[in-house]
Structure formats: structure tokens, C-alpha cells
């Protein structure tokens, strides 16, 4: 009886191979053992990508506590871009679709997304909002208009920010 209990409490010890604990079995039977777990992970990952996200940065400075919440609302050719963007404490913008890149701005990030996934954006549009006469590339213009149209906001009300941006663009 005692032996039975001991074997139940140490199943991993018997399975563990000698080489760093890692073994490799590409068989269908092994795949089926773990399929539900990885299917759920993949589904969770897809759901997470669709959710969007808010990044929160906090710091203390001269006795004051600063909290900055940043939410990105992005459209491409008028269609929502349904993948959450985040921002690091250092201000780098990232998203899980390109998990190894920290962009200077959300504008750069979206340009890279369109470059990498060109087929996903086939058909284009690219004329911007009809009222948005300033929908042009500012990379060589020496000012930061492009950054302001998509960069991090510190409001909890994305619609309010969007209205402000549109008004600024009209001006």
C-alpha cells in the first residue's frame, strides 16, 4: 500500500529522461495527449489579440505618484485594426503580431504591419478621411503631426481623443 501511494505521488520522476529532463516524441499519440492544452492556448492567444489593451505606466517623482494609461485605437482605410498595441515604460510601442520589435511610434508600427502583411491589406484605400486634408507623410516634414494622430493617449475615453484629433487635423 505504501509503495502504491509513493508511486502515485512521483509520476514525473519516472517519466523524466536523463538529458535535462527534455524528451522528444513526434508521434500522433503524444500530440493527442497535449492537444487540448495547446488548442486552448492558441484560442486564448487569438482572443487576446482581438481584445486590444491598455498599458499602464506608473512612477514616483518628487513625492508625486504618476499613472499613465495608454490605449490605442487604430483604423486602416477606415477599418478597425483589431490587434492590441502596448507601450513599454521607455515609450516603445509593440504588439504581439511582431513580438520582437519595439517601435519608436505607433505610426512606425502600423507602417511595418502594412509592409509585412501587405496581402492582408490588399485593395488599399489609403486616402485617409475625406476631411483629413493633412493625411500625408510627415517623415521629412520636421514635425510630429503623424505621431499625434496615433500615438499614446492618456485619456480613458478614446472617443474624446479621436474627436480632438479630427478637429486638429481639420485645422
Amino acid at each position, binding site marked *: 500500500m505504501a509503495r502504491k501511494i509513493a508511486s502515485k505521488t512521483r509520476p*514525473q520522476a519516472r517519466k*523524466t529522461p536523463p538529458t535535462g529532463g*527534455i524528451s*522528444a516524441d513526434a508521434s500522433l499519440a503524444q*500530440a493527442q495527449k497535449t492537444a487540448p492544452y495547446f*488548442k486552448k492556448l492558441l484560442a486564448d492567444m487569438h482572443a487576446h489579440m482581438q481584445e486590444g489593451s491598455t498599458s499602464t505606466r506608473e512612477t514616483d517623482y518628487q513625492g508625486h505618484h504618476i499613472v499613465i494609461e495608454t490605449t490605442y485605437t487604430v483604423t486602416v482605410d477606415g477599418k478597425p485594426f483589431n490587434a492590441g498595441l502596448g507601450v513599454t515604460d521607455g515609450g516603445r510601442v509593440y504588439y504581439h503580431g511582431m513580438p520582437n520589435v519595439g517601435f519608436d511610434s505607433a505610426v512606425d508600427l502600423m507602417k511595418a504591419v502594412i*509592409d509585412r502583411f501587405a496581402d492582408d491589406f490588399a485593395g488599399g484605400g489609403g486616402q485617409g478621411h475625406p476631411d483629413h486634408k493633412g493625411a500625408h507623410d510627415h517623415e521629412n516634414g520636421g514635425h510630429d503631426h503623424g505621431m499625434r494622430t496615433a500615438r499614446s493617449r492618456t485619456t480613458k475615453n478614446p472617443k474624446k481623443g479621436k474627436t480632438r484629433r479630427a478637429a486638429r487635423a481639420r485645422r
Partner: protein
Amino acid sequence: MAVRRNILTDAMSRQKFVRAAIALKAQFTGVTTVSLGIAGPSRPVSTWDRFVAWHSAVMGIAHSRPIFASWHRLMLRTLEQLMQQVLNDTNFGLPYWDWAADGQLSNSAQLASRLWNNDCMGSAASAPGAFTLAAFPVRLASNNAGMLVQVNRALQRTRGVGVSGISNPSLPKKASTAAALATLPYDTAPWNRNSSGFRNRVEGWNPANDLHNLVHIWVGGDMLPASSPNDPVFYLNHCNVDRIWEAWMARNGRTFLPTNTTSGAPVGFRLNDPIQSPFGPAVTSAQVLNVSGAYTYDTLAV
């Protein structure tokens, strides 16, 4: 026992790696897209492509988190053993790409590295060499929303072009690998992209777009999304990251943070938390800190 060697200087490792990659790309064991939960018609998934699906599924777990190094060690050792099986060679060791050595060269010389010869990774944008569309089609890839979808196309690279805002980057430099070796401790709160410590440095978030991350950016194309294990270069990059981690541990001790008693440490990312594998039993980070019984590197000079 496997010895992992420099792919640029060891012809045997280079030839075997290419041969084994193509063999695993063509190995089907009955796993299908449906059984993996991938949308679209049911199609067989090769062993190579199962690694693509695995990596995509754990994107939020295996990156920007403390188990970045240990998770990828598990992944690489798993692939190495499967390559040993198809090669019928238990001494085969995954080769590494010492990219910081190439990073010491001019940008044009980096592009001319022997790595990109057609007997190795191939130099064209669609990477023919051994990895032609016929022998090595990309079948699963992330779309812009990060979803894994079915495709049928050639492998893509943009070597040295970079991405918007990071144009024409150089590969990482030796000064960066040296700085990583001197960075202590292994990881720190908040255990993510904002952490100081070795893990976040070697991953390439602190400073941003350096070391591991910069290699993904430099190769570009299929190396950018979560489906980056499509490209065999992925494994050469991560084998070098693993070598740097091994060098760090040889210098600073086989330590890992957070432990299971570290206050506020996220569950699933601690020293003794299990890391799941679709190819075998789960292991913990503690179990893979010392793999000297499984493989070694020809040199830890990074």
C-alpha cells in the same frame, strides 16, 4: 553527446542541419490543422510546422517573460532530438550562428556572410538554397492580427532592410553580448519588457531592438511574426542565445529568478513551475539550468 558548433566553420553541422530541417518539414505523423485548432480545411501538419504552431500558441508566455531562455532551451533541445532521430545520429548538435561576429563587419559584408550561401540558408528574398518552395513551403503563418492561418508560399526574408523606423540595421555587436554577460541578476520585477537584468537584455528589450530581437528584425520577412520558427534561421539565432545564456551561467552561476518564493512573482514563470511541451513531459526551468548531460558548446566565447 551532442556538441553544438558554429555553423559557419563546421561543414558537417551545416550539412546535417539543412538535411534534418528538410526531413522534419516532410515528416507527417497524423497531426492535422484541426487537431491543433487552426482554422480552415483539415490538412496534415508536419513535425517542423508543429513547432511553428507551438511557438505561436505560447507567444504571450515564452517572450518578454522570465522563462524566455528556459522555454526556448526546451524548444531547441526538443528539435535537436528529433533531428538526431531523422539523421540517425545521437551526437548531432544544433549549430549556432555567432551573429555578433558578423555584426563586427560592415553592413554589406554582413549580407555576404557564408551563412547566406545556397548550401546553407540561401540569400534570395525567398531564400531558395536548400529551402525551395517545393522542399520547404510555408504552410502556417501569423496574419496581421496574430492569428495562425494556413498559407502556401515560399519562405520570405528581407535581410538587412529592417522595418519602419529601424532602417538598414546592423546585426548586434560584440560589445552588446559582453554587456549582457555582465548584467545581473537573471531577471527582475516586473518580470516583463520593462525589467532590467540579463533576460530582458539578451532578449533585446533593454536596450530596445538589440541582440535576439535585432536578429529577428535584421532577417525580417517570416522572422518578424510569431510564426518565425518557419525560418531555419530562427533556430540558429536561438541556439546562439542559448549559448550566451550558458556563458552567462558559467560566469555568474546557475541562478534563475523568480523562484517560487519570490514575492509577487507571476505563477507559471517561476523556477519550479512546469513548462508544457507537445512533444513530451513538462519540464521546469530548474530542470534545464544544467544540461551538460545532454549537450555542450564548442566554445562559450560570445
